[in-house]
């Protein structure tokens, strides 16, 4: 129990130090600090943190930190995913921030803060930390979304996000408080233990159901599940594009991590409740997200709906955990246990979407617009960009050999394994619908003539992002062995403390 605390939270400490350093550098330097310098500090901080995450578990067993945080494989996998993803977000921001002279250092510092928040969220092992992590992510996100305070759209995006988020988290919290009352504890494992020990009769049973539903509201908001998704399109459209990239990836990772851990570690007793609810939510989410995405004209909005739909697929992994593995809560590696599907899916989704947003930002930097119309003739304006766009879109569609395929493969696998046929049929139909609107972008980019034939300039930092994401999406798509290995072993470690 008395594991050394400081080494275990070293990744978090590094981020705090880096964020402080960012602000300090800006304060100390006589002129405003160089944009690239700031970004450099941020990137170094993130990478060091990722390194610390790696060494945290390297050769050591999973362990709790005072019962509050869980240093385990599940958390580490998502932490590294998020930290690498955030490196890309920082790289995006370099170019994007050029017109905004002030508050640059704060912007990077907030990116680090939100990474810190996600690290905490993905490893939260206590209802208090769950709430804290989620709110930390949310509050920092509100600020980042509203960062362009002179921009009406950014304001509006932030306020909508804020109001939805605040209501959802408050409702979720009410659920938490009920759970605390039922079990007398806030520690996830202690909750699970208390629940197994009790015979929940009558009202108690109903109250737990209510609290589970209320909690799903909160998680559903964070992961933009239908019907808690309304904020997503507006917020995605209005937010600064790097932040939209962040919201649709890292932020979502946090939401899913929280949901998986709380439901799986604390509430296996109520599995029947939440499995049923979430299965329905999953189907509605993917269908509605995809159908509405078909009608979008703005790429950021489209990606918002696409990310809603993707959340539906990811949820499949949680819904389709094989019963026999579930009851023992010993997820076996190298099987389709749903959780490794979620991990792989999230990993693939994060890097694919970040790559896609790099393309979106490159075009936005050039044209100032995010309408799909602007993509007409992209292949003439920048063949490489068009090709990458295609790769990322195919990855989102789930076409091999891309990274996106493996995630889908594993969640579908989990669903096949538990023979959840209704869900599978809905998922298959949705894959086709999704292909429809992803290909619509491809149609513009490749088939339509360009109105403006000027070549698209891609800044060096964006080139780096594109290179990294492409290597990940294609490289790990063709040779996913290492990743699958890692994810499966990580899923195995989602254990109780």
């Amino acid at each position, binding site marked *: 129990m008395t594991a050394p605390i400081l080494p275990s939270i070293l990744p978090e400490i590094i981020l705090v130090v880096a964020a402080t350093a960012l602000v300090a550098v800006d304060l100390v330097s006589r002129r405003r600090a160089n944009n690239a310098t700031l970004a450099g500090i941020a990137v170094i901080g993130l990478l060091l943190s990722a390194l610390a995450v790696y060494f945290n578990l390297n050769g050591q067993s999973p362990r709790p930190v005072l019962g509050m945080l869980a240093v385990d494989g599940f958390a580490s996998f998502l932490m590294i995913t998020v930290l690498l993803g955030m490196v890309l977000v920082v790289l995006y921001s370099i170019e994007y921030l050029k017109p905004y002279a002030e508050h640059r250092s704060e912007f990077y510092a907030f990116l680090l803060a939100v990474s810190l928040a996600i690290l905490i969220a993905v490893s939260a092992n206590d209802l208090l930390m769950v709430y804290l992590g989620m709110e930390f992510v949310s509050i920092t996100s509100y600020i980042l979304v509203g960062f362009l305070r002179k921009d009406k759209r950014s304001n509006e995006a932030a306020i909508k996000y804020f109001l939805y988020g605040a209501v959802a988290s408050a409702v979720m919290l009410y659920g938490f408080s009920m759970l605390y009352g039922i079990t007398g504890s806030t520690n996830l494992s202690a909750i699970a233990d208390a629940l197994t020990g009790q015979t929940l009769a009558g009202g108690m049973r109903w109250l737990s159901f209510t609290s589970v539903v209320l909690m799903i509201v909160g998680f559903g908001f964070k992961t933009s599940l239908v019907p808690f998704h309304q904020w997503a399109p507006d917020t995605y459209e209005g937010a600064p594009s790097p932040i939209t990239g962040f919201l649709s990836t890292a932020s979502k990772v946090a939401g899913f991590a929280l949901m998986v851990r709380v439901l799986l570690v604390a509430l296996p007793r109520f599995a029947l409740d939440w499995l049923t609810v979430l299965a329905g939510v999953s189907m509605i989410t993917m269908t509605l997200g995809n159908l509405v995405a078909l009608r979008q004209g703005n790429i950021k909005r489209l990606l918002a709906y696409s990310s809603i739909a993707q959340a539906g697929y990811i949820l499949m992994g949680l819904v389709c955990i094989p019963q026999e593995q579930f009851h023992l809560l010993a997820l076996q590696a*190298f099987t*389709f246990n749903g959780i490794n599907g979620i991990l792989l899916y999230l990993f693939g989704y994060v890097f694919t979407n970040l790559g896609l947003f790099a393309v979106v930002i490159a075009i936005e930097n050039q044209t100032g617009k995010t309408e799909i119309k602007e993509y007409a003739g992209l*292949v003439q304006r920048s*063949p490489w960009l068009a090709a990458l766009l*295609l790769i990322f879109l*195919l990855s989102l*569609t*789930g*076409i*091999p*050999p891309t990274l996106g*395929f493996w995630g*889908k*493969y594993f969640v*579908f*696998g989990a*669903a*096949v*394994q538990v*023979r959840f*046929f209704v869900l*599978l049929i809905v*998922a*298959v*139909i949705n*894959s*086709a619908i999704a*292909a*429809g609107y992803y*290909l*619509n972008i491809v*149609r513009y980019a*490749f*088939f339509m003539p360009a109105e403006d034939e000027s070549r698209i300039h891609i800044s060096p930092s964006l080139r780096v992002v594109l290179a990294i994401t492409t290597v990940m999406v294609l490289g790990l798509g063709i*040779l*996913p*062995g290492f990743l*699958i*290995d890692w994810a*499966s072993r990580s899923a195995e470690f989602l254990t109780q403390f």
Partner: protein
Amino acid sequence: MASLNEWILSLLVFIPLFAAIVVLFIPRENERLIKLSSIAVSLVPLALSIYLMANYFTAHLPNGGGMQYEVKLAWIPQLDSYYHLGADGLSVPLLFLTALLSTLGLYYSSFTIKKRVKEFFFLFLLLEMGMMGVFVALDYILFYVFWEIGLVPMYFLIGIWGQPKDRPRYAAIKFFIYTLIGSVAMLLAILAVYFQVGTFDILEAARLQPFAGQIGIASLVFWGFMLAFMIKVPSFPFHTWLPDAHTAAPTAGSVILAGVLLKLGAYGIIRIVLPTFPEAFSQWSMVIVALGVIGIVYGAFICISQSDLKRLIAYSSVSHMGYVMLGVGAAGAGIAKIAEPGMADSMAMAINGAVLQMFNHGIITGGLFFLVGVIYERAHTRDLSMFGGLSAKIPGYYAIMMVVAFASLGLPGLAGFWAEFFTFRGAFDIVAVWAAIGVIGIVATAGYILYRIIQSVFLGEYDPHKIEHWTDMRTGQEGHEPTDLAGFEKLTLWPLVILIFVLGIYPTPLVHFFNQAAQTIINAL
């Protein structure tokens, strides 16, 4: 040559990829180099596939055929998935077909494709890689990956180089989504098989007979695979993407689409579904037979009413692929009665017919689409009512068209005959009534070939006012009279014509290939 034999399949798959990458790095302005290099490199797989045919024929067929040239390397060991390639009598000829049609397509396109040349050749080579891969993959995951790789280039070939009036974007997306639904269903089926037998090895899975005795779940999985393959074939009622896609695609695209891509589906049925789910196949075989026969008859009758030459040929593909379905379905229907004397032979016959039909249809329809391209490049229209009396104007074209069209009709002595003969010969023994109905299709085929193609295009009076401008493909000039085949067109068509004759007169070697494979499959049932 031992080491070559070991790696030949990998080479077949990856040389096109290599060529594609080479093309990617040639500046787009240098069109000549792009064309030359891609054609030149694509000759290598062609040569290799010929060598493969010869080698297999001489070395392996006499020794019982079976899977040869196997390679099994760890790919994703965590998933029990291997880089497992292999070829048998079923796939070797199809590899040759792929290589041949790809090379011809590339060659033909190097003269006719004018815009976005680099992308075209890149995508075409990528497509070739995907098709080759499907024919040699012996691992489900690998199979699926190659299956999907073929999807994307075809989508672009249709969408970018299609004629605007044919709604290529619509056709492309329709093609993509149809195929995608099928392939996702297949993915789920693959996973289901994996959970049952714990391996992704296609042969191993077939040996272990997943879901034996569980007809309910087996049927589901069976239909998962069948959905994918039937969409690709395309079998009635999943055929609606095909006419659109064919009409819109550029000539070489249509050739590959009809010549090879459709065969992927049929190949999948024979390679995977039939051996792995004999029980379910037997259960549902009558549905497949029925769909095949409906496809034959329906396709043929639709053809008669078409006014667009290319669309007509597209529908003829639906009809012809119906024979394949009929043959396979008949074989499936025979499973239940396999113990009856002569039944195994009939089944083998039906499968032989189906596979022969695949191969021959590849050559014949490939030729037909080339021919449509030839006339379209000249007249810029495919409307049958605009033609007439061309036999006198362009006799060379007429002659070749006659050969290919009659082969399509199934005229004895030409390639198409044997396939139909074997199919019906096998099917009559097993599903006599349906086979009899299928014969109506043959009659209708004769109708549209003779009446719609030969008569309305070539016979009758030539009216110079119908089409004002004819392009001379030799010089690229506009003229008022149609001109006969240019050199490159001849070069493209003659190999096919020769093959049609050769296979029509002496199909025995090819039948050897297929028969061995069919026997192996049936013996394993």
